[in-house]
């Protein structure tokens, strides 16, 4: 029994990070309608700016981390404004936007490589023995991750459901044209959704950097898992993406109970393909009516 609770705990820890990435990704997708790979770069920038402020410059965590998240948010908005917005006007924009986001991802990754060098860095926090909770060993830092994620998600949920801006965001994601006719400033909505999405990615980057370590090439696997979680949950639907994140986290950790650990990535992608084939609208998404000439 203890092993099962441990696997579930591991699943929750990994799931929280995937959920943060998936939520940010899905929030941006609901407005911008394309798969933004550069979201992974925001995750890396969040982690490295936190490392720069906290470890190199030496500010206390409670100053360094919010600023690092702000840097990530700013970067997300900047990339969207300079590169993606003009491309949205093109006719067949999906391919162009997907590749441009790949390009920005590579560009930022190599700039970080040039600035910070290649060797592995870490915050060097002292190692604390894990506490035994219901048979699972969880360290205080991991506990923080497991708790922070839901708190953030509830915050987002309230923001989306209760505040005026939140409602406007949901309206825009439901139907951009109608929302525009209702007087909602679409550009502002894109800025807010990109900003929020990038902030979530920045936060995820910082949490992983604290818990594990930093590497210039840590972004790719984060965005792929975030993307998979968002699709499996239900693309464009933020709560669904969050649950998709936990689903993938748990599936991977429970999966390697039977399969050799080398196949971890393969597990999440097999799940992705199964969902894409049999339930493309995702676990919780509504069936999107195909645009037939109705």
């Amino acid at each position, binding site marked *: 029994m203890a092993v099962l609770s441990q696997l579930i705990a591991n699943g929750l820890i990994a799931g929280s990070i995937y959920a943060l990435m998936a939520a940010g990704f899905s929030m941006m997708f609901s407005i911008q309608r394309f798969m933004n790979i550069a979201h992974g770069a925001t995750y890396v920038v969040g982690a490295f700016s936190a490392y720069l402020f906290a470890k190199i410059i030496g500010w206390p965590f409670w100053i360094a981390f919010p600023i690092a998240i702000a840097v990530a948010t700013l970067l997300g908005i900047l990339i969207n404004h300079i590169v993606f917005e003009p491309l949205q006007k093109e006719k067949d924009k999906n391919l162009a936007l997907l590749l441009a986001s790949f390009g920005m991802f590579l560009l930022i990754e190599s700039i970080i490589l040039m600035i910070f060098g290649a060797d592995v860095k870490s915050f060097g926090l002292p190692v604390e023995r894990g506490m035994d909770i219901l048979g699972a060993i969880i360290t205080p830092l991991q506990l923080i991750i497991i708790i922070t994620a839901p708190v953030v998600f509830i915050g987002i949920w309230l923001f989306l459901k209760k505040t005026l801006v939140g409602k406007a965001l949901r309206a825009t994601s439901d139907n951009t044209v109608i929302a525009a006719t209702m007087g909602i400033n679409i550009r502002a909505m894109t800025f807010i959704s990109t900003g929020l999405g990038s902030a979530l990615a920045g936060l995820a980057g910082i949490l992983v950097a604290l818990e594990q370590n930093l590497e210039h090439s840590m972004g790719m696997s984060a965005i792929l898992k975030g993307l998979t979680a968002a699709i499996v949950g239900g693309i464009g639907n933020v709560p669904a993406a969050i649950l998709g994140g936990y689903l993938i986290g748990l599936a991977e950790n429970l999966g390697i109970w039977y399969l050799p650990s080398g196949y971890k990535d393969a597990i999440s992608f097999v799940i992705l393909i199964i969902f894409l084939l049999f339930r493309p609208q995702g676990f919780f998404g509504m069936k999107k*009516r195909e645009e*037939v*000439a*109705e």
Partner: protein
Amino acid sequence: MSLTVKNLKRSFGGVEAVKNCSFKVKQGKITALIGPNGAGKTTVFNIITGIIRPDAGNITFKGEPLIVLQTHEIARLSIARTFQLLKLFPKLTCLENLMIAHPGKDEKMFDCFLKPKKIRAEDEAKRARALELLKVVDLERYKDEKAGNLSYGQQKLLDIARCLATEANLLLFDEPVAGVNPIVRERIKKLLKELKQQGKTILIIEHDMRFVMDLCDEIIVLDHGVEIATGTPAKIKKNKKVIEAYLGVDA
């Protein structure tokens, strides 16, 4: 009887688009399918051409059941259609749009290597026939222009021309003259009449009553997914139920 529709049912979530609808389309006649918005006209069209599967009921064309077939198999039974929202091939030229539609067998990938001469000859024949059809719809000077660049009216004509290129016997036109200027409207009316002379069976969805009354031999009226009346234009004009459906109950 070329096309018979029996007890067709289809709903989207809670909305019953087509409720137990049955009607027949006479061979060699121009029949119109009319009815207020949301009467289920286009849904019926999509079921006939296999784009949507019905919940119940069946359709037979010259005795052949259609609902078991896929879209392209139905098309091969010489049934062609146009779409309300113009589904041309925007990046192909007008000529190419018409050359795609032909009654012959499907193009095979390696034929261009195995039987180059035969393919080139066939292609020339398709090109000539397509040019002919472009003349019919007076779009010949745009033959090498990308279909996406034509005006709406021109695209409507090209869409109809492409439908003819299939040389299908049963032609389904979804609002052929919607939003088209009078000159083009007349040209389309003339075209449909000529097709009738050639023995084609035509079924059109159209809201322009003057156009329908003037052109069609037979009218089928749908309302809330059910066929409420069938008959000649004159009979339909006087039919009480039709007037109620269109003008509301207290007429």
